[in-house]
């Protein structure tokens, strides 16, 4: 039992040196020239995208000589409230939040507002309310439309009509809705070429996506055009395509024109191997830099837009070498 005491004390002492309070912890907002501190609160690190984004925040803040505090809520909205209140207690100079959802984050934003600390919502916008925040989000609609337009141009080159399938995300997520609408807008412009025969709701769930795509391919074996609202669903989709004998490289007979959204490591590998035609890449590095800049601008009293849109970019085999360095999935792969 004495060992337990000793271990606790040793652990506390061992942890302490790297965690001494910065001067602003006791003295409120720092005077100019003193190191700033930004709290970064993520809802989860469950997918590569969030891991890459957190790493990008570490790099970006490090390069600007800003101290970063991190907190991961592990999917628990109440824990996230507590974590952000911890940031406020420590008098951070800004907060970056990836909320659990658009509604549960409102008390958090209000708490930051009350403490007069700028707060940026990263990649997920909040529900409309009187709480003040800046949202840095991908332009899901435009980027998806652009990506699908590229796929349509590839389809047109085949000289044949195509039956299409879209894997939709969780329609409670505005990102998923924007991507679905962007897909619809692009295929409507190509009504002479593309007929949408299947819409698979995935609710951002691999198993549901796989079951839905398998069913759709059985019902419509001639599907030759497939778009997924997130690259992270590719493992399930590839599995379903393999089962149906339809997983072929670009240019091979029976190739299904394949597109996605996000730009993760799986999509990068599929591009390199020639299975994927295009994906819309969220420019994580742009979004991270814009988030940090928004906090600095807000602190400096400069006007900051409520929403900063990441235009992203479409990556395909034609521009892969040129664009890969900005594709976060390619960097994760390294």
């Amino acid at each position: 039992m004495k060992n337990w005491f000793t271990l606790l004390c040793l652990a506390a002492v061992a942890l302490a040196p790297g965690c001494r309070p910065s001067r602003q912890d006791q003295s409120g907002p720092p005077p100019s020239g003193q190191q700033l501190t930004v709290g970064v609160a993520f809802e989860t690190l469950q997918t590569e995208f969030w891991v890459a984004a957190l790493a990008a925040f570490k790099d970006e803040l490090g390069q600007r000589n800003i101290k970063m505090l991190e907190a991961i809520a592990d999917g628990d909205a109440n824990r996230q409230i507590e974590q952000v209140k911890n940031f406020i207690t420590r008098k951070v100079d800004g907060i970056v939040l990836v909320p659990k959802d658009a509604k549960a984050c409102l008390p958090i934003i209000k708490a930051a507002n009350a403490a007069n600390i700028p707060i940026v919502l990263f990649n997920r916008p909040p529900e409309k309310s009187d709480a003040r925040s800046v949202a840095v989000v991908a332009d899901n609609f435009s980027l998806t439309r652009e990506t699908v337009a590229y796929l349509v141009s590839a389809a047109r080159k085949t000289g044949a009509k195509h039956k299409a399938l879209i894997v939709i995300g969780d329609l409670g997520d505005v990102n998923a809705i924007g991507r679905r609408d962007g897909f619809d807008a692009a295929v409507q412009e190509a009504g002479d070429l593309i007929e949408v025969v299947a819409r698979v709701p995935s609710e951002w769930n691999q198993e549901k996506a796989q079951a839905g795509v398998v069913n759709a391919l059985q019902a419509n074996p001639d599907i030759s055009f497939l778009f997924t609202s997130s690259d992270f669903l590719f493992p399930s989709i590839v599995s379903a395509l393999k089962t149906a004998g339809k997983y072929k490289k670009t240019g091979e007979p029976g190739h299904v024109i394949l597109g996605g959204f996000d730009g993760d490591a799986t999509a990068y590998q599929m591009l390199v191997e020639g299975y994927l035609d295009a994906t819309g890449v969220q420019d994580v590095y742009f979004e991270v830099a814009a988030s940090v800049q928004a906090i600095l601008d807000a602190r400096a009293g400069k006007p900051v837009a409520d929403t900063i849109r990441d235009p992203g970019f479409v990556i395909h085999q034609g521009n892969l070498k040129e664009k890969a360095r900005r594709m976060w999935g390619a960097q994760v792969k390294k």
Partner: protein
Amino acid sequence: MPTSSRLIRVDHEPRTTNRFVRWLLSEYLVLWLSALYFLVLAPFTAGFASPENLTNILATLLPLFVVATGQTVVLITGGIDLSISSIMALASVGGAMVMNGDNGWLANHPLAVPAGVAVMLLLGALVGLLNGAAVTLFRMPPFIVTLTSMMFFSGLAIWLTKSKTIYHLPAAFNALGGRIAIAFGITAILGVVTHVMLGRSLFGRWLYAVGQNPKAARSSGVPVGGVVVAAYVASGLLAALASALYTGQAETGSPVLGQRLLLDIIGATVIGGTSLFGGRGKVLWTLFGVLFIKLIDNSLNLLNLSLFAITMVKGGVILLAALIDAVRTRVLTGRR
């Protein structure tokens, strides 16, 4: 039955001259450890001892204490309730579906808040009743019963809401969890009532008797089945009340509320000293356990440790507490 109160002695005080054993068995062990942990870390952890942070700790401690108190009651009977997280989720969305200002059944009605809270408590009690009935009538292991009911009711909460959270809850309801004075008042009353029930009432003695030896308790006239069912109902009610506090804090009815809290709840209860083997436990111990786990959670966050490190440290501490529980149980049963 009338003699059972005399037959069962509820005594947690160690009788030994060995200082180490006395310390190991002391019911204040975890409180001392909490104090030591706080004193050791406070000088090195930015903001740990600030009044604002202590208020944060208190605000998050209250609902966890409420739900852990229910778990304590079940553990004392020798059972376990793994369904509490699903009860919290189901109660959260059930109450929110009644109260919310968008499309709630009683949207903007003066009785929306009391009706919503009543629905939450009713749902908690019903799930507890089902758990208790399955354990008692069908002699099913509590672990399996509550694990499967956790799966079922978690799924039900998600199905009811189609995975959506429910916002625009009445301000009076949000104040239950959002205003610390109100949450503290509710929690304090509840803690005192449960403490008195366990320590001073016949029903409390029955609970310990059932946990220590159900056969002997039955022979002594204790209505074992009824006591077990009542314990699960109490656990369900307290989980629903904790759900009201958590839902008020987040101002949102959530179908995944409490999904990640099970380890904290059982961990805090066991760390406090309530035995996983039944027959031993107190509300005060659970309070100490909750305090200890919240101090660890809060300090590790303030130390800017990663999620993985925090989870590993908490898991290690809970494992250590379970080991100590096994040692304590061996020492106590060896003496009896």
